[in-house]
């Protein structure tokens, strides 16, 4: 939700934050949703992509795939003490393979609010006139 993130990357929720990802493909929308999620925690423009991690999951349900993708990224980032700023995702049927790049937290990085996890609330992955949109509430 920092100044570099598009304001329409978020929607209202009483206590937590609604994130929205958009793209020409479903995979791009998921990548954009990841950016919106991590931008809640810091200014992504200041994050250097010095380390990369791979992400793999099997999921037939595209909405659950969004939640699992985001939660896997959050888990891997916390496990490594990192923040991610760049994301890539490809899909082959039920197989999702991607990567995330970023760097370990350092004092100069802006501290926003920690995202605990992506929820199934207001979860939606849909085709729109302009491409794809993926949204859900993240718990902070």
């Amino acid at each position, binding site marked *: *939700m*920092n100044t570099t993130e598009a304001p329409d990357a*978020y929607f*209202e*929720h*009483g*206590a*937590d*934050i609604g994130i929205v990802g958009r793209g020409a493909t479903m995979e791009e929308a998921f990548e954009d949703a990841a950016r919106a999620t991590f931008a809640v*925690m*810091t200014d992504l423009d200041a994050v250097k992509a010095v380390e990369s991690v791979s992400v793999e999951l099997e999921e037939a*349900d595209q909405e*659950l795939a969004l*939640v*699992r993708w985001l*939660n896997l990224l*959050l*888990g*891997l980032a*916390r*496990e490594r*003490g990192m*923040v991610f700023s760049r994301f890539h995702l490809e899909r082959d049927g039920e197989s999702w393979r991607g990567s995330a790049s970023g760097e370990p*937290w350092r004092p100069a*990085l*802006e*501290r*926003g*609010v*920690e995202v*605990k*996890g*992506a*929820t*199934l*609330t207001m*979860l939606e992955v849909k085709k729109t006139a302009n491409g794809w949109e993926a949204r859900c*509430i993240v*718990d*902070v």
Partner: protein
Amino acid sequence: MDLSRLQEINEWCWTIPLAAGEQRGEVRLYGSRELLAAMDNKVMEQITNVARLPGLVGAAMTMPDAHWGYGFPIGGVAAFDPEQGGIISAGGVGFDISCGIRCLRTNLELKDVVGILPSLARGLSEHIPAGVGEEGELKLNISELDEVLTGGAQWAVKRGYGTEADLEFIEEHGRMVDPIPENVSILAKKRQRGEMGTLGSGNHYLEVQVVDRIHDREAADAYGLHEGQLVVSIHCGSRGLGHQIGTDYLVSLAKGASRLGISLPDRELACAPINSPEGQQYIGAMNAAMNCALANRQILTHLTRETFRHDIPNAVLETLYDVSHNTCKPERHAVNGGKRLLYVHRKGATRAFGPGHPSLPERYRAAGQPVVIGGSMGTGSYILAGTVESERLAFSSASHGAGRAMSRHQALKQWRGRQLVDELAREGILIRTRSMRGVAEEAPGAYKDVNLVAEATERAGLARRVAFLRPKVCVKG
């Protein structure tokens, strides 16, 4: 909230009448007309969904501080009978399993330490890891983490973080029984390796407060509280481990619900019968996460004591009580004239056992369980005492906080963190944070009036007010 859809039971308790042909349990919403009117309609929708879950006993309820959550509303309470197909819901516990408040009473008077507060604030902000990306000094391997998940605060005390005396004043004596660390994923454990003894961010805080007003002298005496005294409240939970358990089981239970014959009105209410392998697996993991939270608050208590003693060598900080407010616990409750074992979900709600309850420490047996309603950093918090009638009204449950009145997004539009910190400093409240954005999102004006919440909690009979605490120092994540 659209009050025209509610039916008043009394001034402080409301219900939602069943529509023609509607199949669900009873719903009860506690609170004043003013508090309910200000709530989002989603609260009504979410608690109605909870009332549709199998094996519900009594009513699905919201506390006076309720607000729109995910799955369950925050401030939601619901009890389920395992012998009647009752369920356990990961969404009914939340991501921050066993998030709660540790309250410490001190032997210090505000008037004696006013000049030391800035130094104390600096020490606490330097000594207590807080905020996104921060890690603690304690690094644990997987096998040591399994000991944490098994031993809870008892593990922490054995490692030198605090004393045996602390344990008497923690729910479950600091250790939730029947944890199964093997049911916790490796990723969850890896997330926690550097996070023991950390505060987190969002609405978590460590506050130094002064007892501003006593409402119930007798209970205050039992709790060791008097006007002018300093107390400390630590609000946090099970950190990355709990968050990962929440995410792991939310998806697996949501996927398994249809196979188990459960029709979910909202996928976020992902659940399984308590007496099913899936339900038992989650319960084992959840109990382990509760122990993680209890150990975490115990370590933070120790760090707080170290900081106080650095500035004030004769400072004594005793645990007043440690209450969790994101839990599901097996408890025996009175139902239709008999006692039954129920699994009581409290998501953003506090257990509030009344006077005489056998699980209370002897010192509080006559007064009832201490209940903490945490306020916003600019207003204040309340300590209350559980009542006998809360057992009949809400399976002994009460409010847990002021409750949000506006979204984080709206708060960011309305306030600037730096400005708030300066304004609060002028009011004598020292805020220490690394996240000005976090401060703006947590602006006091973004919360309900804690006085109204505490009053409604008392008037509804859920708990009675004992003391009002005014913040002096607030460390925010």
